[in-house]
């Protein structure tokens, strides 16, 4: 509503037609139930949302989950700790090293194992790199949904550097299974360390390039 030239409040309103009541009824918005089904370009992964929508405003949202329930809990009942470790990779597949760390820490607590400090440092490095990968995918897909495709391409390009680093050490790009019970799988290579330090020098600039 614009009064005296200033925008006072934005009304989400039905059109005002003083003269014609019928016109007001016909053009008034009604509530609509929209099913944003499990397949939708914006639901990254499968999530079904049933939305009560009034015009473009969402009034109520009921999520339905379970479309990716794979039975990992039931499956890992029959497996040893080492066999169950790759299953934990696939829980949050964007940051797999972090899931492995959680699993290994729980087992080490139960067994009363103490992890050597070097392994703790390596796990932290891997965990943080995994977190950065996950956040890059978040920002890429978030921007893609809004329409900013460039950020998607920039973030995925930056992510490739991290995935190359993972592959250098563990052999896998995404689902690493690198932290093991009692430490890590293999020692980091010199190649990895050199490239990681290089990455640290340049990454902040790359992040800032994604800003408008």
């Amino acid at each position, binding site marked *: 509503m614009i009064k005296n030239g200033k925008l006072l409040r934005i009304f989400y309103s039905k059109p005002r037609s003083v003269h014609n009541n019928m016109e007001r009824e016909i053009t008034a918005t009604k509530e609509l139930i929209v099913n944003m*089904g*499990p*397949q*939708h*370009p914006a639901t*990254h*992964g*499968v999530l079904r949302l049933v939305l009560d929508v009034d015009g473009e405003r969402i009034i109520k949202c009921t999520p339905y989950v*379970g*479309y*990716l*329930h*794979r*039975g*990992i809990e*039931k*499956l890992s009942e029959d497996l040893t700790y080492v066999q169950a470790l*790759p*299953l934990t990779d*696939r829980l949050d*597949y*964007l940051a797999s090293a972090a899931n492995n760390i959680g699993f290994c820490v729980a087992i080490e607590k139960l067994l009363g194992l103490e992890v050597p400090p070097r392994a703790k440092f390596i796990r932290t490095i891997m965990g943080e790199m995994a977190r950065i990968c996950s956040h890059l*995918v978040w920002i*890429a*897909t978030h921007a893609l949904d809004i329409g900013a495709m460039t950020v*998607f*391409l920039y973030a*995925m*390009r930056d*992510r*490739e550097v991290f*995935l190359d680093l993972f592959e250098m050490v563990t052999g896998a*790009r*995404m*689902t690493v299974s690198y932290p093991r019970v009692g430490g890590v799988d293999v020692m980091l290579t010199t190649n990895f360390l050199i490239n990681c330090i290089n990455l640290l020098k340049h990454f902040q600039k790359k992040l800032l390039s994604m800003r408008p």
Partner: protein
Amino acid sequence: MALILDTLTEPVEVEEGVKVVPAANTIIMPIAKLASWGKRSSIWPVTFGLACCAIEMMATGASHYDLDRFGIIFRASPRQSDVMIIAGTVTKKMAPIIVNLYHQMAEPRYVIAMGSCACSGGVFNTYSTVQGVDSFLPVDVYIPGCPPRPEALLDGIIKFQELIKQEPYKQRKR
């Protein structure tokens, strides 16, 4: 092959069935070949990423391993696409929806099963997982891997293009 000059007015056979008249800037080919060239050079998949393989599919579509150079544009709606790349684990709860989407695609339609879970259930031989999407859909290309590297996905797509090339030109009833 003989030297092809730009001023030749005779048709020159460059490939089996494809003739080129250089002076007239013309290519002569049977309709079947033309159609299959068009189909395989502009594959439009429907975005159907379910789990971890979807992230590798996104990485393949990004700038490092470009998919756009193959003519691949991801379409949101199954009505506008011709292939469904099933990337990720298919659960029994999700199966009816996949069947629905498959029927919404217009013919000729294809299915690529990407990743071990779509090919055969993968690691997850559990009560809720379908052991391979080919139990209820006709699959054309299987791409194994957990997740398959982007190069593997590209290899699968190239094989898919070869498949389209060799298909006879008749109504594909699927």
